[in-house]
């Protein structure tokens, strides 16, 4: 970074933007668009997403015969505006995925640090938990939890939070083990810093890029798990809506009203694709071990 030739102009963020591959640029634009939609859902949704109009059921989108400008993407089997429902669904699906990713990151990082710090028995125990989580398909465990407890929004978010924690724990444990014996960590410890300070102020910033990359890769996967469970009717419960919910409830109307299913399905696909591409690209940019290969 510091070895720039004399006279070279420092790269501005605009230069970085133009240096991005086209697919990454498009993905970024889509992700920003989705985030804006999620944040402004109340403002931009033309109708209340729960408002039913039983006389105006199954109206096609505007570009088809019989479509009207009042309902850009048509209406569903209860006469609700599909565009408004997609907008609110984007907000809920992104919100659940974000919360799930954050919970997983905090949980995994904490357990990873704990394993690296205490070693011995606690390390063994956490490693066994990691192996266990990695061995059993997550969706089966999630279904078991949702079967035994009454499904609620909070419980569902917590279940989503557990998804993928073991990957953070594995990464953080490995990095913390090698970092705590490195010069800077030893130096700070000799200066009298507490373990919490060493881990949070010194080691964590050094592994931030690895954690962020894993979060970007975990985020689209969480979207897919959430929408899958919601599709099965076991995730987000009505009256709330999610992109998976819309596909699940709309599948009975495939013959007459494909738009109820296809439009949210496209949003799921494009959004998770955009996040995956960004995550892969970020990893190549930030992960020093992959650079130069």
């Amino acid at each position, binding site marked *: 970074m510091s070895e720039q030739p004399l006279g070279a102009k420092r790269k501005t963020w605009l230069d970085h933007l133009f240096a991005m591959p086209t697919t990454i640029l498009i993905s970024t634009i889509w992700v920003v668009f989705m985030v804006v939609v999620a944040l402004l859902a109340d403002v931009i949704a033309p109708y209340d997403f729960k408002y039913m109009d039983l006389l105006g059921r199954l109206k096609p989108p505007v570009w088809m015969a019989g479509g009207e400008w009042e309902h850009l993407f048509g209406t569903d089997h209860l006469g609700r505006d599909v565009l408004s429902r997609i907008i609110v669904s984007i907000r809920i699906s992104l919100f659940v995925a974000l919360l799930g990713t954050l919970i997983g990151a905090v949980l995994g990082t904490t357990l990873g640090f704990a394993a690296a710090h205490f070693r011995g028995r606690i390390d063994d125990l956490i490693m*066994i938990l990691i192996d266990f989580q990695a*061995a059993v*398909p997550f969706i089966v465990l999630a279904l*078991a939890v949702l079967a035994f407890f009454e499904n609620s929004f909070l419980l569902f978010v917590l279940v989503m939070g557990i998804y993928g924690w073991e990957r953070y724990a594995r990464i953080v444990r490995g990095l913390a083990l090698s970092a705590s014996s490195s010069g800077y960590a030893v130096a700070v410890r000799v200066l009298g810093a507490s373990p919490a300070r060493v881990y949070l102020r010194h080691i964590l910033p050094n592994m931030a890029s690895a954690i962020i990359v894993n979060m970007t890769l975990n985020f689209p996967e969480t979207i897919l798990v959430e929408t*899958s469970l919601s599709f099965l009717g076991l995730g987000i419960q009505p009256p709330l809506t999610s992109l998976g919910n819309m*596909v699940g409830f709309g*599948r009975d109307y495939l013959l007459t009203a494909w738009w109820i299913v296809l439009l949210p399905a496209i949003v*799921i696909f494009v959004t998770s694709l955009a996040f995956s591409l960004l995550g892969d690209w970020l990893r190549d940019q930030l992960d020093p071990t992959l650079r130069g290969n």
Partner: protein
Amino acid sequence: MNLAVISIKIFRAMITVFLLVLFVFVILRLSGDPAVQMLGLEVDPSALEAFRHRWGLDRPVWQQFLSFFWNFMHGDFGQSFIGGRDALGVVLERLPKTLWLMGLTTIFTFGLGIPAGIYASLHRNTIADRAIMGLTVASFSLPNFVVGIILIMVFGVVFRLLPTSGSETVWHYIMPVVTMATADAAIFARFSRSAMLEVLYSPYMRTARAKGLMWGQAVRRHALPNASIPIVTVGGIYVGRQIAAATITENVFAWPGIGKLLVTSVQTRDLAVVQCIVILVGLTMVVTNLLVDLAYGWLDPRTRTGDGK
């Protein structure tokens, strides 16, 4: 791989099974009175009492856990709501349908994914390579239920070529198998590509070329066998993904297998069946991972010597 390493692996596998049973036990206990959970509130008190006694719920917690474990190890998972039948029986009855689905999917996945990956590796950085890799990324982002719904829309609704639900004829298999294979073929394509790239530029390939082998011969005799070893390691992940995929896909196509049973049981809170499926899935995964470890040691002599690391 020596005996000590194998026994450590078996020990760890047993710990995973133990944790799984503990997991089911804990969520069952946390979610309320297990007797009421399993039998429902409307049942008469003597049945609740009999249930509590049978599962040892009137004894201390650790004894309860032991008897819980003991019953599981003897295949006693309790009774399903469905006609009060044995949960294990209800589950095993559905097993063949799911196994057929998975077996056919596996043939399809390997046949599609591995050749695509090998082809991409041999034509690295060409348009074909990029197209294959682009397709794999896209198919990762397509959840099973979306693939299934789109297939139903195209082949079931628009063209009316294939049946959309059930499992009676050969035609019923086509769409579920294609749905399950899309994501996993992508995994094998990516993995076999990177495994091939790893060996294609290794010194022994240069040696093989230097001693006069044609490129194609060198690839067949040296690169392919060496690259095929790491593919075994994906086995565990693959089985796990198959189970997850079957859970979703069976529900899209109303396929009467274990995945459909699991979701129905969760919806109706038929907990005996749910816990039976969870334990069986866990056992399957543990055994698969163990077999993968053993097979890897057997296939790759380099891991056999030394401390087995």
